[in-house]
């Protein structure tokens, strides 16, 4: 697929959260005290923390190695696996760390908050990642061997804002015609959509998931998540950022392709 020119942009995009995640081979020596040591390094900017359960590894596979035998089990490990959230003063930025992941999130707190574009998020991630790698180096924990990069955009498309019911889903999703072959079925009560696309040269996948949901302030929404995931050329920062550039392009262009022109007008498409 040939892509060129500037990526689409909107006056009021429905993005409520973005995150950039780097997954690496588990750091063998990284243990509970290191969360505290790392926090002392970033505490001025991230004064609050929360302990969360860890995320499992996710790997995009291609070709012969694509089949993996499913397995289930219970394992006892000597050290509790945890993930730590370090929350910025503003409450809008978050850094998440676990033994094999580093994640940097931005979220919209109030409806009037302006979406922070990728060209602002990217340097912010870059600074935090460099800081984390410096910490690992200083404490002798080694250099992370990156096996996946992941980027997600979370969009909330509110019911009543450009569409009124699932009978009007064709106004939201470009490839949803809203028509039936024999006109037997009524308008759907609810719709979930999941789609996957392969990035060029098997550099990863774009996952699109749409599900009806309700926000904490009782608004009915469609949550449309676009996640790009794949392996960078190497573990160095340049390769990671290069992969994120590709992931970002696929998310933004994918979002525009997947959603309908009526909603683009509603969100004030500029480019």
């Amino acid at each position: 697929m040939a892509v060129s020119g500037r990526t689409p942009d909107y006056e009021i995009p429905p993005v409520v959260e973005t995150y950039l995640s780097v997954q690496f081979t588990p750091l063998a020596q990284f243990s509970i005290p290191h969360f505290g040591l790392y926090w002392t390094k970033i505490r001025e900017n991230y004064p609050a923390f929360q302990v969360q359960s860890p995320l499992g590894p996710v790997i995009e596979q291609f070709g012969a190695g694509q089949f993996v035998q499913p397995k289930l089990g219970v394992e006892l490990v000597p050290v509790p696996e945890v993930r730590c959230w370090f929350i910025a003063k503003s409450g809008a930025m978050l850094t998440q760390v676990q033994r094999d992941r580093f994640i940097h999130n931005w979220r919209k707190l109030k409806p009037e908050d302006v979406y922070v574009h990728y060209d602002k998020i990217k340097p912010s991630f870059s600074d935090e990642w460099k800081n984390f790698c410096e910490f690992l180096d200083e404490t002798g924990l080694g250099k992370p061997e990156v096996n996946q990069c992941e980027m997600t955009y979370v969009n909330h498309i509110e019911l009543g804002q450009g569409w009124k019911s699932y009978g009007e889903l064709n106004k939201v999703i470009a490839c949803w015609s809203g028509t039936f072959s024999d006109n037997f079925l009524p308008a759907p009560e609810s719709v979930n959509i999941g789609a996957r696309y392969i990035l060029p040269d098997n550099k990863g996948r774009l996952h699109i998931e749409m599900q009806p949901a309700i926000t904490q302030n009782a608004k009915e929404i469609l949550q449309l998540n676009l996640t790009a995931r794949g392996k960078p050329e190497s573990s160095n920062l340049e390769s990671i950022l290069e992969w994120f550039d590709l992931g970002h392009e696929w998310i933004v262009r994918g979002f525009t392709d997947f959603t309908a022109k009526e909603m683009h007008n509603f969100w004030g498409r500029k480019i």
Partner: protein
Amino acid sequence: MNELQQFASARYTGTVMYGGTVVVENVSSCFITATVTSGSVLTYTSPIVSNLGGYAQWSVVIPTRALSQWQIQGIKRLNEVLSLPKNWDSYGSCPPTHAAANTAMDLLTGIDIDYFVAPRVVPVSGGGLQLEWEIGVRALELEILNDGSVEYLTTERREPHEEGRIRMLNEVRSLFLWLISPGSIQMAA
């Protein structure tokens, strides 16, 4: 005899494939206190932490498919009340506060009873709101004050039965069960 306490972590894992995406799920993560006696006997006490595997996503939403029909109806009614303008009662009242709205959402989404009825949702002057159920001869009113605290009143045959303050979500579950217990329906018949 040496006794010591230590932490162990039990992880239920599953490897699944979605197309070409391999996902290793940590379905739960438990920290278990283990008492080791004479180096040979392990006594496991109850888990002190048990969480479902999470997501990297920070913003919280509730997927509609995780909710029962009564909860969805209740949330729709709550949304209407939260959309009230200032001075909705012509006595200068503000719409329900964020604290009241958050508590109402917790009450509507935090109880795992599949078959129930959606409440009436009514605003209360001063930024609060009230959730009301009436089944058979019994009725339950949960008044959510503007600071998010909750008081309840139960009635039977329109006579006051019990009132008090709610501190734990589980207490509401007991009230729901009282409301739908066979006694309520039989007395109505």
